């Protein structure tokens, strides 16, 4: 199969808060013009801090929330505003794994019923055949098949996340959206789930949108990375590129803030500490959204205030939205500045 599995174009999602019908009220700019594609078998990491809009992007693609504008195409079918009924057959194509394995599984269903439900609803299997496929799915995600008769509360967090994964993969989706799938788990359990995700992705060849705040898992799992800040993608590049030569000041700050279990690396690290907090998505700053916290905002003023930086290709499929990044791929390195001023 050629062509991308998922194409997202200028996706916008605004939430209206505190207003009566038709009345004024405020608008949360959760996602404000996001575009990217995911190729067949590709894993794209969507990284950002709380409030960056990364989860809303995932929810829009799965049509759990209605996009305000923009376009979402799954395998060349425009699903942006399909009705629920028309969407139904396409639900086989996109499945989700959620962060919290406690609240995302129905406590009144056995784990076997949970995993078999998509197969049943899509009328792909029933009776003995259904059970056979559920057993196979349990084995696939490393669960003992006997556990299909148990209820979610009888399982550990890691086992529950495996059930969620088996459910998501039951109908053979071409795209898996995983929203912080390991954040609620202990470190020792996380590793097993990440290995499993990687094996399954390798064997079954589905594409993935991996949403997380954790840069270490992205580096382990993803082919490309998109970094979000306040509803916008600020940088998008192959994983190696992002980690070796991040261009956007926000990406640089994010990477320098991530802690690793190595005291030498922690001491050697040139820290870029961002001032202040993320502005409210109710009133994002004009021009460059990062300018209120950017150590280099003065360098690009007044352009940073007046003009929104475009997400441009600076070569090698490396996209960055910063006024200071040149088309030739040159961009200021914050760590150098931090060392100079120290």
């Amino acid at each position, binding site marked *: 199969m050629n062509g991308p599995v998922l194409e997202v174009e200028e996706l916008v999602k605004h939430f209206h808060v505190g207003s009566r019908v038709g009345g004024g009220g405020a608008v949360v700019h959760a996602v404000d013009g996001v575009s990217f594609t995911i190729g067949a078998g590709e894993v794209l990491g969507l990284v950002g801090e709380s409030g960056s809009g990364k989860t809303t992007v995932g929810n829009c693609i799965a049509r759990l929330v209605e996009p305000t504008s923009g376009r979402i195409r799954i395998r060349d079918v425009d699903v942006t505003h399909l009705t629920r009924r028309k969407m139904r057959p396409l639900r086989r194509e996109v499945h989700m794994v959620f962060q919290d394995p406690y609240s995302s599984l129905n406590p009144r269903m056995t784990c076997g019923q949970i995993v078999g439900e998509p197969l049943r609803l899509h009328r792909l299997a029933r009776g003995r055949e259904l059970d056979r496929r559920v057993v196979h799915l349990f084995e696939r995600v490393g669960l003992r098949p006997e556990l299909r008769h148990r209820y979610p509360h009888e399982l550990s967090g890691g086992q529950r996340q495996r059930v969620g994964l088996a459910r998501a993969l039951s109908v053979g989706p071409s795209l898996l959206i995983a929203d912080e799938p390991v954040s609620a788990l202990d470190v*020792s359990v996380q590793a*097993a789930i990440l290995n499993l995700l990687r094996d399954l992705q390798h064997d079954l060849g589905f594409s993935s949108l991996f949403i997380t705040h954790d840069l*270490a898992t992205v580096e382990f799992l993803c082919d490309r990375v998109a970094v979000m800040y306040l509803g916008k993608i600020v940088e998008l590049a192959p994983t190696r590129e992002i980690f070796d030569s991040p261009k956007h000041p926000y990406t640089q700050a994010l990477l320098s*803030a991530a802690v690793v279990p190595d*005291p030498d690396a922690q001491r050697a690290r040139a820290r870029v500490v961002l001032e202040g*907090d993320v502005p409210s998505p109710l009133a994002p700053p004009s021009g460059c959204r990062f300018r209120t916290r950017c150590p280099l905002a003065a360098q690009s003023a007044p352009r940073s205030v007046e003009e929104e930086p475009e997400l441009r290709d600076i070569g090698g499929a490396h996209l960055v939205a910063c006024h200071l990044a040149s088309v030739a791929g040159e961009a200021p390195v914050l760590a150098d500045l931090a060392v100079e001023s120290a």
Partner: protein
Amino acid sequence: MEALLDVSDLSVRFDTDDGTVHAVDRLSFVLGEREVLGIAGESGCGKSVTMLSLLSLLPPTAVVSGTAHFGKIDLLAAPPSALREIRGREISFVFQEPMTSLNPAFTVGKQVGEVLRRHLGLSRDDASRRAVELLDLVRIPAPERRVREYPHQLSGGMRQRVMIAMALACDPKILIADEPTTALDVTIQAGILDLMREIRERLGTAIILITHNLGVVADIADRVLVMYAGRKAEEAPVDELFRHPQHPYTMGLLGAFPRRGVDRLQEIPGVVPSLRELPQHCAFAPRCPRADELSRSEIPELRRVRPDHWVACFHPGMNGASR
């Protein structure tokens, strides 16, 4: 190094309707002056219960034994009145969730001032002046304005700074921080870790940092104590621990950390044991690739395997079967 806090043979159990839960089992450790001690472990390892037990902050169902010498006082035997003097004044706490630890109905200045008035007997005016200074100390911009604001008007990082300001109000000797950055974004976490480093440098406060994140430990701790199922698994200075981990559990945790260039992460099979039936053998044995008859029949005592490096394992070291 002078011992500021000396905990010896601390055990905490809870008698519940479903039986006895052994949360902490014969734990000993020492905190030195100006030292940052990292206590690392996964959920349910007893790291938080340990700290709460020191200041009698556990529910009455908890049965605590052992000693915890803070200067001349044994915290575990001290009467409530003596503990009230120490709590918040000599030893103070910062918790994980800065939203629920602050009272939403009072301004930030009032809450910081409350500590000062109660413990130090400051007047209302002095307390509010000092509150502004404290907010400035924890690097909150425009402290004169912030003291008049309510917790909901502050971001998560700012609230955690307020909590730290309250904890520092009486210039404590020990600051106990329980997962202080876990609820925060990484760029905010970096600022809080820098702040704690600065506090130690400027005020000489000793810090006990409880966390599940070995990255945070590597960043800020001088010495690390790894806990598993209520017991100490390993203890060493930070460089020593990360360069030469000895306990298979510690090695497993480090190998489980995702990073580039590895094809597979190291997995630790199985789950953390239930604290209801704490085994009379090595608690890690069921998940350990090196476990043998000995591990399954006796509890390994802590022993020194390298200078200043203690481990509770019958088969410690880097050259074990798992690597």
